[in-house]
């Protein structure tokens, strides 16, 4: 018997289970004269197309611009982009369904992405996400897409969320209500705690002395070979003089099978660059 739940558990592209319309011809490249495109959108797409050697490169910026205008990549938005770029709507749909930030369903024109990846997971982000989602349901927040997201590259602020591109963190579970009501009332949540806010600092940075502002050090900070941080911490020893700079090693003759830099290549890390190097030499 077919296990319906298992089918839906995997990452399937949206629309995979919708029947194909066999009574309709496949959509072709739209006639530019027959599709009305808002002039701003047209200008933006044409500007982007002129920046690349191949106009197809403008697909992502064009879809993003259409999404800003329409709130999601609706069939209408896709038709407009297709008319300006002269590609088929199917091609644009194939791209739009691949990328997480392009919405293929009308689920809100603003977003709250809550990072629940490894580093945030270690700091209780799942509970934060669930609290925000529960609050959004309770307070009836509309036109906002709230979802878990891949690592947003702000693990120092964990647990954090991106609110229409503004990174906010660290957020505590109990603050979910405040976040949602701020969004509902059109206020900026947690002023001063967003990455773009002037003077933004993380809580544990407050007491820290400002790092020295000098240029690069003349000589590197030396650590005696085999020493550990504890040695340096406990013994107040004067710094070890740096050994004289090594003369650059003479160029090594290349023997097949070794890497040029001489480093050992661990198959576990699958340094594909080594393969490339072999390829280049051939």
């Amino acid at each position, binding site marked *: 018997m077919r296990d319906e739940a298992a089918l839906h*558990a995997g*990452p399937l592209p949206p629309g995979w289970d919708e029947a194909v319309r066999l009574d309709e011809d496949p959509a072709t490249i739209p006639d530019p004269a027959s599709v009305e495109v808002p002039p701003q959108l047209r200008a933006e797409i044409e500007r982007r197309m002129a920046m690349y*050697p*191949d106009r197809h*490169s403008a*697909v*992502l910026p064009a*879809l*993003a611009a259409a999404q800003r205008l329409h709130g999601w990549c609706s069939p209408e938005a896709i038709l407009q982009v297709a008319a300006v770029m002269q590609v088929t709507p199917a091609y644009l749909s*194939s*791209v739009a369904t*691949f*990328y*997480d*930030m*392009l919405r293929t369903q009308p689920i809100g024109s603003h977003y709250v*992405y809550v990072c629940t*990846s*490894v*580093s945030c*997971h*270690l*700091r209780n982000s799942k509970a934060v996400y669930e609290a925000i989602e529960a609050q959004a349901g309770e307070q009836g927040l509309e036109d906002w897409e709230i979802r878990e997201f*891949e*690592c947003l*590259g702000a*693990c*120092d602020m964990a647990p954090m969320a991106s609110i229409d*591109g503004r990174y906010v963190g660290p957020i505590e579970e109990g603050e979910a209500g405040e976040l949602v009501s701020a969004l509902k009332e059109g206020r900026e949540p947690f002023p001063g705690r967003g*990455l773009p806010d002037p003077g933004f600092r*993380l809580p544990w*940075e407050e007491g*820290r002395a400002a*790092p020295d*502002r*000098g*240029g*690069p*050090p003349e*000589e590197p900070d030396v*650590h005696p070979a085999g020493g*550990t*941080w504890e040695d*340096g*911490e406990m013994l107040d020893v004067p710094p070890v003089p740096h050994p004289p*700079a090594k003369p*650059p090693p003479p160029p090594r003759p290349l023997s097949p099978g070794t890497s040029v*830099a001489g*480093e*050992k290549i*661990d198959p*576990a*890390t*699958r*340094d594909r*660059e080594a*393969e*490339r*190097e072999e390829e*280049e030499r051939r």
Partner: protein
Amino acid sequence: MSETRVLLANIDEPGLNTIGVYERLGGYASMRKALLEMSTEQVLHELEESGLRGRGGAGFSMGKKASFIPKGAMDKYLCCNADESEPGTFKDRLLMQKNPHLLVEGCIIGSIAAGANKGFIFIRGEYELQADILDAAVAEAYDKGYLGEGILGSDHTFDLVVHRGQGAYICGEETALLDALEGKRGNPRLKPPFPANQGLYQGPTLINNVETLCNTPIIIEHGADWYRKFGEGNSTGTKLVSVSGNVQRPGNYEIELGISVREIIYGLAGGPPEGRELKCFFPGGSSAPVLTPEHLDLPYTFEAMAGAGSMLGSGAIIVVDETEPLVPLALRLAEFYRHESCGKCVPCREGTNWTVKMLERVDEGEGTPMDLDILEQVQGNIIGNCLCVLGDSMAMPVASMLKHFRGEFEQHMEQARTKRDLAEAAA
């Protein structure tokens, strides 16, 4: 404590993201030097001699990579990989937000080395603030004549475009990045041909990480010999490490390669919260196999991390303390890779999916000890058999957790089963 600030030397200077402040602090001097006083060969030579290795993950020599680009008059491209999506990594975000002109200057120097006339900074779509800052920096550089045709009266022409992704981890893989930049779904390509021969628009393409390119102006300014003094062995220079997870002071720290891992985790980041011990850590992003406290005194270098069975990767250290159960963590990790798998090749698409399902069984108390064996076997079948490294990126850490903490997995399974049985009995 013992940060060695080279890339981050001026990072707290107010207004560093504007060209005026950047130039006042000596910015764009390296570009002048490389363009007007040095030949292409000299630039390449300096980069190769410096021993600078890729900071994005693979750790391949940057100068060597640039020297692979074929010579001759044709359209060649430079791509800066700013799609920083590796969980745990946030170093490029800091560089681009605070010091965008260093990256622009690095791109220009990279373009001289590769002979590229067109460049793209592929930045992930979530970094909206950083992309806006970069856009402004590129515009300022154009105004000053540092980008465009015949830069500073030389015969070098270089155009730079900031291109925003739309949220896909896989676009950090270099060939998937190229496909995304060409306006397609971000599926990795079969290699060879390598991007150095046939990359973007089928032209020779040099692809480098943000931090790698940001190092190039420093190497040109101070010389390769100066740069080689930093670091240890074949791991030269300084490295930005992003420390996160269960530590007291998560953040970016710039260290000289070769200081001990203990010094980074305990010295700089403050170690796990009071009264807790470290259980394990990822030394190079969530794709790196985990290491245990016995590895804390290893020097933080490409070689030592590889020797311990892991990798330095992107330089993101994720610390896990003793209170954290590992099964939900492994599950979280596997779910991430399942979601991000592009689906082009079978071992990754099916392997990530099955790993998630089996870890769910273990977590919910439905697993048997045999499941752990199968789980291990599945990881072995993924590693080395995928089109790109995404599948391996899940399989290696999951396999390493199983290897180091099998007892905990078995215990977790038993406890979950008992709990489930009790709940059933009560019902």
